């Protein structure tokens, strides 16, 4: 460990280079940042949690500058203003974001290498069509969860670095999801099928949200929560082990995104209670659009066909199982809302009664 520089240390260094240009040794002679911090690696290596020590670990509620300088360094004044508009920690932060970043990095996978594409089998025509239709839908909707963070990230104050880093992993995850579902649609001799307007309408709603927190509520909590449950269904709807593997891997990624969103919204509401109504308004609209997407006839028939293993059993097996799973989907969503500090049970316009959910007896704990 090098000692802290004293005022007379390195006093005899040259003031100009051989061409006569002035040299700057201020970084060596002592800067106004914390020197001597030496985080220790944990059993997993040197994590972002390990280096969140001293001043480097302090994330300001409202950073005084809007610069890309790394948090904790000695910043030259004046420094250019990057024009960030998300300058409050409550607008982007979640208390689990460092852990989620590390987890995302550790649990990356490859749609090219980690899926046993060689094991695909010829499927009945209706089942192949159904999986291709579902993959068409998923390949489309997954990319919104990459576009949306990309839209907002460059507007986030750089002192919230860890949140931006996590969102980078989400963008990579979603690119891979879009990739893997596109690959599956094509890989077994089928192809991409129908893209419906309702799906695009939902994506537009998310992308056009007025604030990041509204967008996060629509994307992380509502949209990705919905998709997470579809991925969980992968066990039941997959015709072969290839699709099962795809859904299992994608499920793990999606659950991370939902975990970030849930605790981001909680952090936002706890630190700025006024934002709760803003989120509720976004969800009032988003739930209705999502219901249109979730009940659009092409998606529901494709899912029910897969649940039934073919069109012949769709009424006896597919639709009943789909209804059963819809209840789980909605109760999971409502429970996450509660965890985020948002009571949607009494406010939602989703048809809870049709699915046998009684708002008066609903308990958020799973």
């Amino acid at each position, binding site marked *: 460990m090098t000692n802290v520089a004293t005022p007379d240390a390195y006093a005899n260094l040259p003031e100009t280079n051989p061409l006569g240009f002035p040299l700057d040794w201020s970084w060596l002679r002592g800067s106004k940042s914390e020197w001597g911090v030496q985080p220790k690696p944990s*059993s*997993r290596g040197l994590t972002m949690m390990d280096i969140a020590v001293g001043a480097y670990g302090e994330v300001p509620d409202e950073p005084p500058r809007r610069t890309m300088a790394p948090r904790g360094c000695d910043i030259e004044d004046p420094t250019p203003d990057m024009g960030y508009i998300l300058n409050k920690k409550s607008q982007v932060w979640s208390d*689990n974001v460092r*852990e989620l970043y*590390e*987890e995302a990095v*550790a*649990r*990356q*996978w490859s749609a090219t290498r980690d899926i046993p594409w060689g094991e695909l089998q010829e499927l009945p025509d209706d089942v192949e069509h159904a999986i291709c239709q579902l993959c068409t839908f998923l390949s489309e909707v997954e990319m919104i969860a990459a576009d949306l963070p990309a839209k907002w990230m460059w507007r986030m104050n750089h002192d919230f670095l860890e949140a931006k880093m996590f969102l980078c992993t989400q963008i990579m995850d979603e690119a891979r999801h879009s990739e893997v579902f596109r690959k599956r649609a094509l890989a077994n001799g089928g192809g991409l099928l129908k893209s419906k307007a309702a799906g695009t309408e939902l994506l537009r709603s998310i992308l056009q949200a007025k604030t990041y927190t509204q967008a996060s509520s629509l994307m992380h909590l509502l949209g990705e929560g919905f998709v*997470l449950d579809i991925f*969980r*269904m992968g*066990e*039941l709807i997959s015709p072969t082990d290839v699709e*099962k593997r795809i859904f*299992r*891997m994608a*499920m*793990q990624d*999606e*659950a*991370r995104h*939902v*975990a970030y969103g*849930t*605790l981001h919204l909680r952090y936002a509401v706890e630190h700025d209670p006024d934002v709760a109504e803003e989120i509720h308004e976004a969800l009032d609209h988003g739930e209705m659009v999502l219901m249109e997407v979730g009940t659009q006839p092409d998606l529901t028939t494709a899912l029910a066909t897969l649940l039934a293993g073919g069109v012949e059993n769709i009424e006896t097996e597919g639709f009943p199982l789909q209804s*059963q*799973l819809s209840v*789980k989907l909605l109760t*999971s969503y409502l*429970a*996450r809302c*509660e*965890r985020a500090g948002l009571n949607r049970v009494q406010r939602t316009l989703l048809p809870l009664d049709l699915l046998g959910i009684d708002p008066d007896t609903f308990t*958020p*704990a*799973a």
Partner: protein
Amino acid sequence: MTATDTRLEVDRIRFFEALADEMNADPTRFEVLGDVDMSIALVMRRPTGDAFRAQLVFDGIRCDGVDEIGEGDERQAHCWLEGDLADWQAMFANIVENGRAVGRQTINSLTLVGDRITVHGADPLGVDRFFRYNQTVQALLDGAAAVAAAPG
């Protein structure tokens, strides 16, 4: 071995210690699945009315905590899985028979339908951890095939 074979005594803490040993002895297999930070409890309801409860604590690519716990202690874990002992035995028998869980005997399938084994958490985010680390949990449970094949 049939689906109802109960040669594995799954409601014993030594069985889960053996699963943890299998995991910890094979870091290469678990490294590709990624790090885990989770405590998970399993509750097996016996026909006699009592229940066996175990808690597993994952850290990184290891399962470093295996403990039998008392009634209600499962609520201290991030999440817990609960079902009749016979359903747990059927799941492990499927693993032993096939080398890994197949069909609707994967832990995700069982908890998704939820008519035999259910997933719970005092906090929805705890339940989400089960989904985030699902493939690691499945790989640990799949270790039952190796445990069953081990001598003694």
